[in-house]
């Protein structure tokens, strides 16, 4: 991994409700830090240049690419990963993804669910085209996307209109 003389910096942040105060290597991405140092492997590392969306995490309530933010930048932030996202939308989406077979290998699923939850929080009644647009930055190589859109629409159908 990184050499022993790797420069680090001190950060203090909250991850899934737990306060963490630690040293992080300067060039470690947020998602690598969450996986390798915090032990939260639910966020996945795919392309490492912001294309695939597998690394999505929430930082201060917003979904971001975990591979395009440095761990040192999480200082002072509230970070949520798929393991800690227990809001009703996320739980409903997890259930709907299961029932609609909206995953096969599951690599993209955490990122998909966090992104879909953000969409439904902002727009509870999207069209299928709007769901596809909102998930256009999340790659799935298994499903062909159809059941993923089905699952998001199914959760949308049980939400009260905004």
């Amino acid at each position, binding site marked *: 991994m990184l050499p022993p003389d790797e420069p680090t910096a001190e950060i203090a942040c909250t991850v899934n409700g737990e306060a963490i105060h630690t040293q992080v290597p300067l*060039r470690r991405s947020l998602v690598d830090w969450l996986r390798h140092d915090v032990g939260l492997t639910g966020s996945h590392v795919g392309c490492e*240049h*912001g294309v695939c969306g597998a690394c999505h995490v929430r930082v201060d309530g917003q979904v971001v690419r975990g591979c395009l933010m440095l761990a040192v930048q999480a200082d002072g932030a509230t970070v949520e990963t798929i393991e800690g996202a227990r809001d009703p939308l996320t739980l409903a989406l997890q259930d709907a993804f299961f029932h609609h077979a909206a995953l096969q290998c599951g690599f993209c699923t955490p990122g998909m669910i966090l992104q879909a939850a953000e*969409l439904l929080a902002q727009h509870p009644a999207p069209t299928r085209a709007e769901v596809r647009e909102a998930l256009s*930055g999340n790659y799935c190589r298994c499903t062909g996307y159809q059941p993923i859109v089905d699952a998001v629409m199914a959760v949308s159908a049980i939400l009260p209109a905004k």
Partner: protein
Amino acid sequence: MKPARFDYARPATLAEALALLAKPDTAVLAGGQSLMPMMNLRVARPARLVDINRLPLGEIALGNGVLRIGALARHAAVLASPLVAQAAPLLPQALAQVAHAAIRNRGTLGGSLSLADPAAELPACMLALDATLVAASAARGERRIAASAFFHGLYSTALEPDELLLRAELPAAAPGWRYAFLELARRHGDFAMAGLALALGPGAARLALCGVEAGQRRQPAAEAALAAGDLPAAIAALGTAEAMDSPDLPAAQRVHLAQVLLRRAFQQIGAAHAAA
């Protein structure tokens, strides 16, 4: 795919940030949605990063007929801003085409303008909206740069290495002006194969392309034809654009797409304009 080593500083004040930028081989880290991929791919290997995310540069304000958007304003914030919708309705049209939701949550106006990617939507918007860009350095203080003098070509701007872009100032939309931003991409959010920002007013037009030429600029010949209401002449004028050439998208095809977009944009706002 990990970045090479770098030093990192996160200044709390603008003065501190500008002092750090005076050092050689220093890159500004704003949203990081282009810089971090370039560093992960090791296309970029800056010796030090100055993370400006703690600076108070994200404000969006409207006053005295001028819309001011701070360099750190995130795309998602600009896209959702009622002030922007009111004073610069071109920008929400364009920002809806910029990348994907998670990238718009982090990416910044200043980052996009400072990078000057040929396919980026926001430089074309700044040109079509006749924006003034305000930059600062420790040695020379603030200066104001017209958008038409800011973009110098492929990934090249008027910014000096020690300068930081602070904000864009846009004249608020005037009565009688209409705006269209159109783009063609292989998938929503992908880099533009061709994009077009058009502002059409009474007897006047401002037009800029993205994804077509290596450097973004106003298109004066097409603008003059549009100002005279002559769409065919404007479309013909775009035929002289010096388009980028690549195996998957030849120059002639980019020019053709730009011409198609101009016809669509004019049909969208020009006809309504003529009727008004």
